[in-house]
């Protein structure tokens, strides 16, 4: 069972929820897809880590063979190639690795070379298997890394997998939730929170995912995000209080469920609710 945790914006508590659910489940897999700013590993501090470099293919030119026909330059939609002073130059940062230039070079002057864009780490923390994607700073696109994280590490289906998504609703998030059985949307009690919740709400609807909302940082008084859920008839899975003890644990990168019985109970009950929801969905759809 794959459960994706997402939110319209960073800082709402995706990592808090996904890390603590994975820890509450005892035996589970946690995948950090927020590859621009991965934080899950700071909590899990995984041991026995193995690393694998993630590469993309970009063109390499053999200037001996290139006859300056510019077919590749004209073809490239991303302006990643230029022919200057009788030399072909590749602008690596803007290359999308589509392979078109190599495919259409009549002189076979272009070949592929691998370029490292970051790494994927795998390790364990108690009985949680932790995968982390870390995109190098200055790299534009992490899609190849997300694909690697999600499609090459398929844990057994009877195991719980938690996917900590990147913030927002752009292409990387779509890739992250594609195979999820259930989505948890985390929202803050502010008007920003509602605006951002609405975006991911639209996204999960578009993908026909079953989902529910966790309201985080709840305080006394009005909660615009809660009102939004009630209006749209969205299942509220849990209300996490604004709690300075939890805040301190979390800001010190401690896993709350492993530190304190109270939070163990809180996240275990959230996990049960989510599992019931998924069961309910599968039975009603089969």
């Amino acid at each position, binding site marked *: 069972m794959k459960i994706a945790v997402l939110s319209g914006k960073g800082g709402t508590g995706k990592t808090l929820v996904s890390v603590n659910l994975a820890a509450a489940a005892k035996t589970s897999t946690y995948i950090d897809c927020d590859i621009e700013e991965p934080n899950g590993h700071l909590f899990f501090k995984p041991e026995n880590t193995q690393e694998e470099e993630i590469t993309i293919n970009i063109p390499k030119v053999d200037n001996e063979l290139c006859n300056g026909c510019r077919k590749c330059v004209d073809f490239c939609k991303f302006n990643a190639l230029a022919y200057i002073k009788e030399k072909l130059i590749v602008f690596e940062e803007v290359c999308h690795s589509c392979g078109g230039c190599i495919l259409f070079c009549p002189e076979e002057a272009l070949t592929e070379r691998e370029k490292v864009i970051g790494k994927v780490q795998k390790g364990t923390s108690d009985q949680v298997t932790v995968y982390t994607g870390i995109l190098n700073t200055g790299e534009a696109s992490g899609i190849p890394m997300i694909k690697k994280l999600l499609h090459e590490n398929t844990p057994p289906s009877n195991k719980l997998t938690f996917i900590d998504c990147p913030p927002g609703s752009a*292409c990387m998030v779509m890739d992250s939730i594609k195979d999820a059985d259930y989505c948890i949307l985390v929202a803050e009690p502010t008007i920003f929170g509602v605006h951002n919740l609405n975006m991911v709400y639209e996204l999960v609807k578009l993908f026909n995912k079953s989902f529910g909302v966790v309201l985080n940082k709840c305080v006394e008084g009005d909660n615009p995000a809660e009102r939004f859920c009630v209006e749209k008839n969205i299942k509220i899975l849990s209300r996490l209080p604004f709690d300075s003890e939890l805040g301190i644990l979390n800001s010190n990168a401690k896993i709350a469920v492993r530190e304190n019985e109270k939070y163990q109970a809180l996240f275990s009950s959230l996990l049960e609710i989510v599992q019931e929801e998924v069961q309910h969905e599968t039975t009603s759809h089969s």
Partner: protein
Amino acid sequence: MKQLLILSGKGGTGKTTIASAFIKLSKAKAYADCDVDAPNLHLITEQSSAPKRTDYYGLPKAEINTELCIQCDRCRQNCRFDSISVDKKYKVNPFACEGCGVCQAICPVEAISLKPAVAGELMLHAKEGKVFSTAQLKMGSGTSGMLVTEVKKQMKSATAPTHLAIIDGSPGIGCPVIASLSGADMVLMVAEPSISGIHDMERIINTAAKFGTKTAICINKFDTNIENTKKIEEFCKKQGLAFMGKIPFDAGAIKAINNGQTIVDINCASGIAVKVVFNKTIKLLFEEYPVLHSNDALHI
């Protein structure tokens, strides 16, 4: 015109809260929201009129004319983005297609064309000599960097000569952030005193250093974890990064935001603190000081 860019690496640290206070305090005539994935600045900067809206066309998308298609499978085999599938007929998944044109070029019967696709919307508020540029990316679009560039272009094109522009940046270190950084005169990093926040701050400082952009730091919600706040301050000293001050956690800030106000519109602790940060930042923005270079290793 000097451009001040507000960044954080991590989401939720308070970029928009601080940007909106800066806009109010500086009476800036030009400002922009570059968080095109989840723009929020418009929610607390009063806009008296409806914006001018423009469709933003990202990369075109491939479209297969199934009437002409002879099912040779070349397009599917050569698509690096796995965006072509076949189920009796060939079709393109627009969310996966990056508009590279390989399929179009390789199709032997010209059954594939690239069609322009709307990937978002630009919004421009221009009134009484003030310009506010913002945008919203369409769900699942991947060209947020290009849209950020358009947001900044739109701001510049509509602005009368002015000395200051304030830009609310996007989270992360990827393509939208890189697009926000180009042309910025200075970056103010909003850090939060959590282990995650420190980790993300290091990564974004590295990104800014690659561009050689002048960088300063402030800490938001500093009293939620005093230990980590000290760590950040020590880190700034060690790295020679300009430290602009600290803003306390303040329930008043949440109230102000939920009323569509900035923290300097009401009398609250965070509003008082942000004024100090603002004055220091503006002073630094308009003076010269040496830039941190990317070959300086960063470790706390």
